[in-house]
Structure formats: C-alpha cells, structure tokens
C-alpha cells in the first residue's frame, strides 16, 4: 500500500481528532479577522475558549451560500488582500456571485490535497495527465492542474470541449490519466469509437477522475468498460477550494474526506441536528487549514451519509457515500450549477409566456439534457416564425445565463400540471 502522506492518511482517529481540534481553534481565531465572522461571532457570543472538544463544534453558527453572496466580494477575507494571490468566483448572474480567496499557502495546501487524491488512485509522476475541465474561474481546471504538477505528472491542460482535439492529445501525447465529467467521458468514448479508435487498444489511458456531476455506479462501470480504465469519483466544490475535498480510493467504496483539511458533519436539513453515521443528511464542512477565507460549518446542501466502518485501504479518514442529491433545488448539469430561479427570471421577461413552467432533466444517450416546457400566455400569434424566433430568443438568453443550452418547448395554456402549494418545477429523471 502506498500513500502520499502516510502519517496523515493513516493517523489514528484519536490523533486525527486532536489535530482537528487544534486546527479548528486556529481557524476560529483567524476567522474573527473577517468583517463577516467578527459580526456573527459577536452576535452569537462565540468564543474560541468555549471550544474544548470536537462536540463543541455544534455551538458554532452555520455559514450559508447566501452569507457568501451577501458579503460579496471580500466580506469573508481574514487576511489583507495584499496577502491573497487568487480568487475564484461562481459564474451565475442571478444575485451576487460567491467569491473564494486564496493565499499562496492556501494554494499550496490545495495542490497537496489534490495530489494526495490522485496518488491514492494510483496516479504517479510517470503519468501523463490530461485535464478536460474548463480553466479560469471553474476550479476543476486550475485545481487539478496544480495538483497534478505537485504530484509531478506531465500535465496536458487541454481544457474543455473539442472532442477530436482531446482525442488527438490522448493518442499523440500518450495520455494515461484524465480528469473529466462523467457525461463527457461517455461522449468522448463514443467519438473515439466513431473515429475507429478503440480506447482500450489504441490509447494508454488507465485511470480517470470523474466528478463535478452526479452519476450512478452503473454509469461509472459503463465508463470503465468503454474506455478500458478505472474511474474514480471525486468531489469538490468551489467554496471548499474545488476538487480534492473527497475522493474515492482504490476500493471504490466511498469517498475519503480529508479530515486534516475539513471537519465533516452530516445534519438533518430540517432540524439541523447531527445524524448518525449511515444516515443520509446534509453535508456540513468546516475548513481547518485555510487562512485567506476559512468557512465555519458551511452548509453544502449536498445530501450524503458517512459510511460506517473502516476502509480496507488503511486510511482512517471518513468516507462519504455517493451523493444522493441536494437539500435545495440546485441542479448540477454537465458540471454546471443551476438554480431553477435563474430559469424563471429569464422566462418571466417574456410577455408571450405564462407563469407556469416545468424543468425536466434526464439522461439521453448518456448525456444530461434539460427540457424546459413553458406555457404560452394569452398573447398568441398566428405566425409560426414569431413562435420559432421566440423559442430561439428564449433559448439564447437561457444559454447566456446557464452556460448550457436547454431544449425549450412552448406548450398551451393549462397543459402543465397545476401547481398547488409548493410548486414542483423540476423533474429530475436521471438515475443516481
């Protein structure tokens, strides 16, 4: 068994928890330097001295995505901006985006976190690693780039899209490992077969990291067969740096969450009380080694559970189960986070449309597709071209907002289910 940092990865639970407690205290002390936490801690009467054991974590207030939005852009900065070297921001245009700041030390720690994950699944400095994530604000790009470089891989920053170019890189450069979203992995495999390339025979691919999009065990196995690789589920979120938060080991049975980086809690999203291991709840994370912008009890809204028992790989860090969905209405499609409200805001700008709409997400040919059905209002036209250009115009605006292109279907008034009480706007038919 080989580890990137054996001492930390296999540390006894007692020692790990002691480490967490001391780092938590440091984090809380640092957090007070931000305008946001200074105010929150004062209001809630939080004192670092009250934190004597890991159970005391529950005395601390939660942090939400809205807190990040409301304190955009620098309200959570705990160190002067001159000591920050990078920021990542979410892409949405609905309301304020979120910003995460990093110091040089934070970036170094993040790179190490990603390198640890990659090493865990057998990627070595002899590998050629191609990253198909978008670079720029999307953390899957630079996050994996720095991690792979830290590990010593020859990295190919191919970035997103252009399947033929991706395939040319894979075959010409002898790429052995990929970071790729699962729906794109199947797509890429299909393009390879269509081009007469058998990835099992004609490429050197052996390991891929798939994440940024919910996917099922069946989809993983399919990808493994199609590409002739081992595929490992990775979890990250921009608020927690990005990729590297939790990652499967070779056992492919749960994602180890690095507890020297974050304290993990699972809570009941209604009562906000902790739930036992094995019970599904909302993932709540506290960063304990970030200096520019620590987050305390951040409500991720992702639903999962902690797998009971120890992992055969020897790592002591807890394992998260495959993600089961969200405790809010956010959809993750092709690695893009989408809130139905973003769609609603666009639709409501069109007088030709009524107010009833339905979003359906399903897997079509191994790719996640979004269909938006929207009712017409009374302003009906007899003219086809008007209806067609209306459709085109709406799709165009949706694409600008969402960064993916949905299919739009105009439907007659009264043809969508009448909404009673809490409106059900989203049907997610993907198998998870």
């Amino acid at each position, binding site marked *: 068994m080989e580890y990137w940092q054996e001492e930390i990865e296999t540390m006894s639970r007692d020692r790990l928890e002691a480490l967490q407690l001391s780092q938590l205290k440091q984090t809380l002390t640092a957090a007070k330097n931000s305008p946001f936490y200074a105010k929150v801690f004062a209001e809630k009467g939080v004192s670092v001295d009250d934190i004597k054991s890991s159970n005391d974590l529950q005395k601390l207030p939660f942090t939400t995505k809205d807190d990040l939005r409301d304190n955009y852009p620098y309200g959570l900065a705990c160190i002067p901006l001159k000591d920050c070297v990078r920021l990542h921001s979410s892409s949405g245009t609905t309301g304020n985006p979120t910003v995460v700041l990093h110091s040089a030390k934070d970036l170094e720690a993040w790179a190490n976190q990603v390198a640890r994950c990659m090493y865990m699944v057998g990627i070595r400095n002899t590998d050629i690693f191609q990253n198909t994530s978008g670079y720029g604000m999307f953390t899957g790009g630079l996050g994996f780039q720095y991690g792979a470089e830290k590990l010593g891989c020859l990295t190919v920053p191919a970035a997103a899209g252009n399947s033929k170019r991706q395939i040319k890189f894979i075959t010409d450069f002898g790429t052995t490992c990929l970071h790729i979203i699962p729906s794109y992995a199947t797509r890429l495999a299909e393009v390879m077969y269509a081009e007469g390339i058998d990835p099992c025979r004609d490429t050197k691919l052996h390991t891929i990291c798939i994440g940024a999009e919910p996917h099922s065990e069946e989809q993983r196995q399919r990808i493994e067969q199609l590409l002739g690789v081992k595929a490992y589920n990775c979890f990250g979120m921009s608020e927690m740096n990005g990729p590297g938060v939790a990652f499967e080991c070779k056992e492919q049975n749960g994602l180890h969450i690095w507890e020297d980086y974050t304290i993990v809690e699972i809570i009941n999203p209604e009562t906000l009380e902790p739930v036992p291991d094995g019970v599904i709840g909302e993932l709540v994370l506290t960063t304990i080694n970030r200096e520019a912008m620590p987050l305390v009890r951040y409500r991720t809204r992702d639903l999962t559970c902690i797998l009971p028992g120890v992992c055969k790989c020897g790592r002591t860090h807890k394992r998260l189960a495959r993600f089961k969905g969200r405790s809010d209405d956010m959809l993750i499609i092709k690695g893009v986070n989408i809130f139905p409200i973003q769609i609603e805001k666009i639709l409501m700008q069109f007088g030709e449309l009524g107010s009833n709409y339905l979003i359906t997400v399903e897997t079509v040919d191994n790719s996640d597709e979004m269909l938006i059905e929207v009712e*017409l209002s*009374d302003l*009906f*036209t*007899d*003219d*086809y071209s008007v*209806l*067609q250009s209306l*459709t085109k115009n709406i799709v165009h605006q949706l694409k600008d907002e969402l960064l993916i292109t949905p299919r739009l*279907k*105009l*439907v*007659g*008034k*009264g*043809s969508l289910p009448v909404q009673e009480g809490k409106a059900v706007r989203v049907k997610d038919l993907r198998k998870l």
Partner: protein
Amino acid sequence: MTINQISVFLENKYGKLSEILALLGKENIRIIAATVADTSEFGILRIIVNDANKACRLLKENNVNANLTDVLAIITESAAGTFAATFALFTKAGISIEYMYCFSVREKSILILRTNNKESALEVIRRHNLEYITENDLINL
C-alpha cells in the same frame, strides 16, 4: 374582403386536436374550412367557422391559446391555371403568401390566404376585380 379565421396553438400531444374539435362541436360551432400545420415542437390549427367570435371566446374560456386573424377569401373558377393566374398577380405586386388553403364548392374554388401585406393584397383584388366572398356568404354556403 377579409374574413375571420381562428388560429389555435396545438401542442404535439396525443388527443389534443380531438379535444379542441369536440369542444367546438359541443357548442354547435360548424367548421367550414380547416388546416393544421406542424413543426417538430407544436402545430397551429386554423379554422373558418360559422361564428368566429363565439368560437374564439369559447376556446379562451377553456384555456386554449387561440386568436382571431383576418385572412383573404378569394373565389376562382375550379379549372386548370386559375390559381396560377391569381397568384401571378400577387407576385407581380411584390406580395408574398404566408400560408394558403382552399376548398371547392360547385365548380368554384375558395382560396383562404394570408399575405405579408394585407393592404397591397386588397389593392390587387380591387384593381383586378378578383371575385371574393364575404364572411356572411361563406357561412351560408
């Protein structure tokens, strides 16, 4: 010269057309002419009926997207070359036809059509003395 046509938005959905036709039938609306055009996502049903205002109101009350459009109704002899001769006049006047449907009654053909320029089309009809039918006459055919 112009008559009222009802246009109805039709979802591509099994039974939708039947549903709308049944609604009209139940309320004693007689359909004189009808056409359905479709795209991959939706269709438009266009009908001439014996009481356009009532029918349109009825549809709207039943939550159907419908509206009234005025279209031209021209009469030609039901003979070879008559359509060609009529349309040549519109073409010559720079008018495009957006859609057209027709039916024949006793050696006469009735052309229902919508152009891109109603005023110019009416001018062509007047200038060339084309035969047309009023809504009242159409209903009493």
